[in-house]
């Protein structure tokens, strides 16, 4: 070690020591400075916090002084360049990971775009629900099915399930509501054509009630066709199924919340009702037996 290095090490050490002493002094309670002061004063206003602060500073002092000991200072100064290159390496890894994630999202968006291109523009109205459902099930549903960990894993799992089921139900109910709207759309088209025909034949009614009756008759006919169709039954069934699943998942979450409130849950009450029912059946049966025995 050269004289300059030794001087540098000595100065660095002294500087570190004086800096630590300064913080330590400020962290220590000061006594008797003010003749009128009857109480101990502290740097942070709390003795406990001062103790914590003091011990933290001591730990830091210990680590840093280790770096600047005469035996270590050489290595510290030489390796300082390596610290920055290590930081750059870490940053590079993080950036690559972010870029990778971004790439995956872009690929997902491309897949979504390709999914919707598969259907023609004419069918976008009724097929949009199938499209959305396919996109959701392939691209987004997986995030709600990631296994949960930790003490609260079951609660989190039930919340994820409830959100997933809600999304599925939203799609179904939207499709169902759209189906109920379709007869109105068709009625408007047919009604317009019929009125046009009547106008061309010179049959113009002055009574708006006639037009209303005509419109409602056409609407009723379209609804009857819709209600008897296989597609309607399938959509209705799907809506019922998804609603039932969502309701159950939602109730599971509510039951978790209810645990903190002193009220019984439906599940607990059902068990009680079942017991009461079975008891009543037993009593009725016994009453019948007793009656038949006493009548004999």
């Amino acid at each position, binding site marked *: 070690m050269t004289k300059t290095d030794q001087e540098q090490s000595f100065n660095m050490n002294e500087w570190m020591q004086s800096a630590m002493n300064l913080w330590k002094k400020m962290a220590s309670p000061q006594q008797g400075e003010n003749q009128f002061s009857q109480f101990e004063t502290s740097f942070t206003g709390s003795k406990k916090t001062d103790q914590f602060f003091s011990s933290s500073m001591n730990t830091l002092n210990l680590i840093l002084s280790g770096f600047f000991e005469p035996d270590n200072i050489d290595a510290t100064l030489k390796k300082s360049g390596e610290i920055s290159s290590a930081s750059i390496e870490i940053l590079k890894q993080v950036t690559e990971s972010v870029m990778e994630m971004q790439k995956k999202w872009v690929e997902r968006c491309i897949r979504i775009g390709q999914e919707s291109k598969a259907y023609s523009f004419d069918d976008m109205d009724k097929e949009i629900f199938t499209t959305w459902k396919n996109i959701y099930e392939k691209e987004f549903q997986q995030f709600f099915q990631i296994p949960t960990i930790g003490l609260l894993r079951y609660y989190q799992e039930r919340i994820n399930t409830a959100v997933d089921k809600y999304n599925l139900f939203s799609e179904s109910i939207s499709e169902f509501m759209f189906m109920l709207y379709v007869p109105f759309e068709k009625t408007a088209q047919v009604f317009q054509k019929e009125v046009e025909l009547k106008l061309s034949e010179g049959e113009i009614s002055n009574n*708006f009630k006639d037009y209303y009756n005509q419109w409602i008759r056409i609407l009723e006919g379209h609804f009857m066709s819709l209600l008897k169709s296989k597609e309607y039954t399938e959509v209705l069934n799907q809506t019922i199924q998804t609603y039932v699943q969502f309701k159950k998942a939602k*109730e599971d979450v509510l039951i978790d919340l209810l645990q903190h409130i002193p009220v019984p849950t439906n599940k607990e009450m*059902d068990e009680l*009702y079942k017991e009461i029912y079975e008891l009543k059946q037993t009593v009725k049966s016994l009453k019948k037996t007793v009656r038949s025995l006493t009548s004999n």
Partner: protein
Amino acid sequence: MKKPKIDVDLILKTVAESTEQTKVRVQKASEVLTDHLDVDLAKTPYETIYKEDRVRLKYYRPDKIKYNFPLLVIYALINRETMLDLQPGRSVVQTFLDRGLEVYMIDWGYPTRKDRFITINDHVNGYIENIVDFIRKKHNIPKINLMGICMGGAFCVMYSALHPEKINALVTTVTPTNFDTDKGLLHIWMKQLDMVKMADCYGNMPADLMNFGFLLLNPARLMLDKYVSFFENMDKKAFVENFIRMEKWIFDSPDIPFETFRQFISDCYQKNLLIKSELKLDGKPVILKNITMPLINFYGKFDHLVPPEAANQLTKHVGSSDTEDVCLATGHIGIYVSSKFQKEFAPRIATWLKERDG
């Protein structure tokens, strides 16, 4: 060809007149709607003489009793029995009383979650059996007359097959017994939709969902046209009163106990066991041939809930030689509430029962 001339003046004149008429109607309607309206149902006096759990038995006593056997009326679990006593002049119960027939009517009450385990057997061999025995004991008679409406009629059929010795005569009205038909939307939906799951997640089958389902059977008429008609006539007090009464009745629906609903869907709608005499209650088979008492079976030609094909097979499967099918040109509810059929329906039942009064 020249396009016909659209008389714009006439159209504008019609619009102006319609607006004037609407204004007058709305003004009068506000007076009608804010005035006292007689919209109460079931005004015929009765006495509650029996109670078991949620079930009540109503007793209607005529001024003069002219029948040996009283009539027990069993309504469906859907909607309320008050429909049989809608208003003066449209009351099946009052018609029976005027003829001197004592009437008992079961009030099924409003099931709660507590009742979700109650089965069809509990209704038929439990509540109905106890009530029949109660009436027989009260009158000191071996048999009574039985009348069922819709699902209540199905219960009556089951009871009569299991206990024929206690029934003098059986009347079924708009009663589904054959479910192997696609004529009614309900029959299609109950086979293809999993409504039992829906009922299970609610505890019982919720009345609100059932009401919504019934409205979906004909949304154009039941959700739109009906209220347009109300708007057009809401300045007429009598119309408003009748309309409100029907609204009160139609949306006064109890839930259906889950186990009963489940079994009815499964064994009746899906497996059609009743008409095949393969239905079992508490392990005992319901054999339709055991129905040996006189039977009259009413159904509606335009009934969209219980189409004729679902109701007109019963008389072919029972063991009785005294059977009659009566098809009325009306719908499911019109049989009871239509002013036209008031003279055709209840009086005919009363006469038929009188002929078999022993």
